[in-house]
């Protein structure tokens, strides 16, 4: 049943299915902008995955290297850079689209509808960038190992680790999605609180 408010008026609606459809459409139509946002995330995730794969392989061939511990600092820096980069991109994105947000408001959206649409867009960017970044990271990690160790023995070890690498790609994608959504919350929340007249002035 439609929830009624103080004057007995029904609330305006924006179903999750429709928001997902619109978010996906926005992603497809704005490839250039999405690519710019995505490149930062792809680089961040591939950097993190490269470090994990490379240290796993080096640890296998040279157990006394202790490389994983040494590189944990770089991992944290990679994560922070990724979040800061995405937050910055999302602030710019939201700023550029404030006129569009104002238009949505004149059509009857609630702040929660704007949040829903933008967070779904971020989620899609996070998933796509995460898959790509993780695959690139795995390839670079293996490539760096090949510079130092024998091809056959490296590839033979990689073959025994396919399940772990698969999990790493899934993990990288989940991490990317979470990071992008978290980094988007602040700018998107700000966008949803805009005064419609103010937002429309920015067209």
């Amino acid at each position, binding site marked *: 049943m439609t929830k009624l408010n103080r004057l007995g008026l029904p609330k305006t609606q924006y179903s999750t299915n429709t928001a997902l459809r619109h978010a996906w459409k926005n992603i497809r139509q704005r490839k250039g902008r999405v690519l710019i946002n995505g490149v930062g995330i792809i680089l961040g995730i591939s950097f993190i995955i490269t470090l994990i794969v490379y240290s796993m392989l080096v640890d296998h061939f040279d157990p006394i290297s202790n490389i994983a511990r040494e590189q944990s600092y770089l991992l944290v820096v990679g994560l922070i850079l990724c979040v800061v980069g995405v937050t910055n991109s999302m602030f710019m994105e939201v700023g550029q689209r404030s006129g569009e947000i104002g238009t949505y408001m004149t*059509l009857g959206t609630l702040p929660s509808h704007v949040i829903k649409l933008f967070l779904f867009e971020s989620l899609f960017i996070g998933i796509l960038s995460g898959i790509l970044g993780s695959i690139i990271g795995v390839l670079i990690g293996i490539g760096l190992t090949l510079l130092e160790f024998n091809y056959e023995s490296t590839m033979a070890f990689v073959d025994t680790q396919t399940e772990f690498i698969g999990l790493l790609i899934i993990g990288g994608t989940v991490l990317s999605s979470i990071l992008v959504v978290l980094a988007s919350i602040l700018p998107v929340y700000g966008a949803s609180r805009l005064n419609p007249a103010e937002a429309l002035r920015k067209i």
Partner: protein
Amino acid sequence: MSYQYTLKVEDIYRTYFMGEERVRALQGISVQIKHGEYVSLMGPSGSGKTTFFNCVGGLDQPTKGRVYIDEVDIAKLDAYELAWLRCRKIGYIFQTFNLIPNLTAFENVEMPAIFAKKPREFRQQKVKEVLTLVGLGDRMNHRPAQLSGGQQQRVAIARSLVNDPAIILADEPTGNLDLETGLEIITLLRNLNSEKGTTVLTATHDLKMIDVSDRIIWIDDGKIKRIETIHNIKVTLAVDDGACEDPKIGGDQ
């Protein structure tokens, strides 16, 4: 249900600050617009037209005074109710068209009906009906970038009509259009007003709007200077009292 006054504005003021400077954009405006009327708010740039438009459209809060749409005091509405009012009771048309660039004409027009929770079949039928009404039955799947300025404004008009609003608020609807296309849009708005009984309030400095308006409200410096009917204004122009000679009117065109 139709009320005596679709829009009633009682003594509204709007003051805001630009840096240190206090701007009195509206200084005590009162207007009553009956159901089915076509009213134009005329005045030069900076006279307060858009501020008035924003205040009566629930996009901005007046500093003082009351705005009633279909006898509902919009100052008493919470965020949810205001969203409902914008969705169901008001249709907006802007100078810059304000279409969602990634959506087709059909999807743009469908948006307010989605928010109003209209069933899918009803939406499909209604969107086709209003797009055909504005002469875009064959352009439904085009995106805004694939349409001319006049066609984009027609999509915006169709979007404003899709939920059968109590009033259409058009802020400079011809401001970004050439003379001929502007005239087509004005005629379209007037036809919708006469045939469907839609109440229309336009904020404009386009003098072509005079011919189609039932009443013209002249504002300047945030105050109403005079209110004239279409009949009065023709007489006024004939005696040349300077109503159209004011260099500030139409100054941006």
